[in-house]
């Protein structure tokens, strides 16, 4: 963690760079969405860009990059459970017994 005024000054430069990167990536993600790509591809690209942007914010604005191990572990567990919650219910949608969706009685 940065503490002295000099270190903070060095950080300021990083903040502006990150800001520039975020703005550029926002433009890129909108531009890519206009391209005619398959939905799977579009999701992959959009999520990839969003993850980069998210990591930039977390690492530099939230200083996660200079934190110690413990909080990482908690966040990793958290993200793991998030994916569990995301994926398992979706898998049920594709199970054979669930495929019998009906429109109306």
């Amino acid at each position: 963690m940065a503490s002295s005024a000099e270190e903070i000054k060095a950080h300021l430069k990083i903040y502006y760079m990150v800001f520039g990167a975020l703005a550029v990536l926002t433009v890129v993600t909108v531009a890519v969405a206009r391209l005619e790509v398959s939905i799977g591809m579009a999701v992959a690209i959009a999520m990839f860009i969003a993850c980069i942007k998210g990591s930039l914010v977390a690492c530099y604005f939230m200083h996660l990059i200079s934190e110690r191990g413990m909080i990482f572990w908690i966040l990793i567990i958290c993200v793991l459970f998030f994916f569990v919650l995301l994926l398992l219910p979706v898998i049920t949608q594709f199970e054979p017994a669930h495929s019998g969706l009906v429109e109306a009685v």
Partner: protein
Amino acid sequence: MLAESTYGAWFPPMLSEHGGEIDHLISVVHWFMLALFVGWGIFFVYCLVRFRQRGGHKAVYNPVKGKISKYVEIAVGVFEAFLLVGLSMPVWDWYKNEPPDAGADRCEIRVVGEQFQWNFHYPGPDGKFGRTDAALIDTATNPLGIDWENEDAKDDVFSQEMHLPVGKDIYVRITSKDVIHSFAIPTMRVKQDSIPGMEIPVWFKVKKDATTAKLKESMTQTYPIDKIKWRRIRHHVAVEDYQDRSGQVVLAKGAPLGNNLEQGEKLINTLRESGHTELVLQPANPLEVICAQLCGNNHYTMKAQLITHEPADFDAWVQEMIEDRTAGSEMFEDF
């Protein structure tokens, strides 16, 4: 086999082909649980007595070094794996992945739950379900909105009783109109939530000799009148006439013992005072479809009579239902 088929405080009668495996699994699990609990209980009680605080007795600081607990834990794990792989998964695999072949031999039924009744839709001899349309739904006469004008629907049967042929593959497609219900037949070891917006199939086979008529016969029992509680026999009927001292029939053959607690208790009293010491009773209908998922105010009344027939009788019932309906609609037209 059927002679043992009565209701009691352990398994209910088991009348489907696959149910035996489920019962077997439950029995094995319970023997396992019992063994574990007793073994463990003996150790527990021994400790409680042997190591109680008393003069001159001191606790020992160093932990006991035994591997027994580790072995027990491993054994428990291994046995659980066996239960899962060896006993549970085969049944479930069949229950989910091996539907009976479609064809004339498969009796297909559409089951639609609604607050608070079960609706059964049979495709009839052509094996095709007629079109349904939510716009045609009429709660009293056509809860499923079957389009009777539709060609496939001409020989369809709608019923609020479930009729099944014994010994044939039954293929039930379960859905719901409103909230989540659960289609449950305890005696068949069948349970499946009925979920609006989804149609989920379930299949089973009723044992060959498990017709309603035979079941009634086998469940006929003699009840000492002093031990009869109305609530426990409220779904039973008398198998013969019972008279009071004046010779008047107070409980006719085939009649239930009153429709509510007051009536029932009065009747039982009358019979006792008339000198009867025991009554021979049988269930009015031994099989039921019930709802296993809370579905609102009258959830508890959501049940349907389940009647099992010999296949020939079942076909006759289907014919009869079709004729009744067409006759009914003609009458309506005449009118």
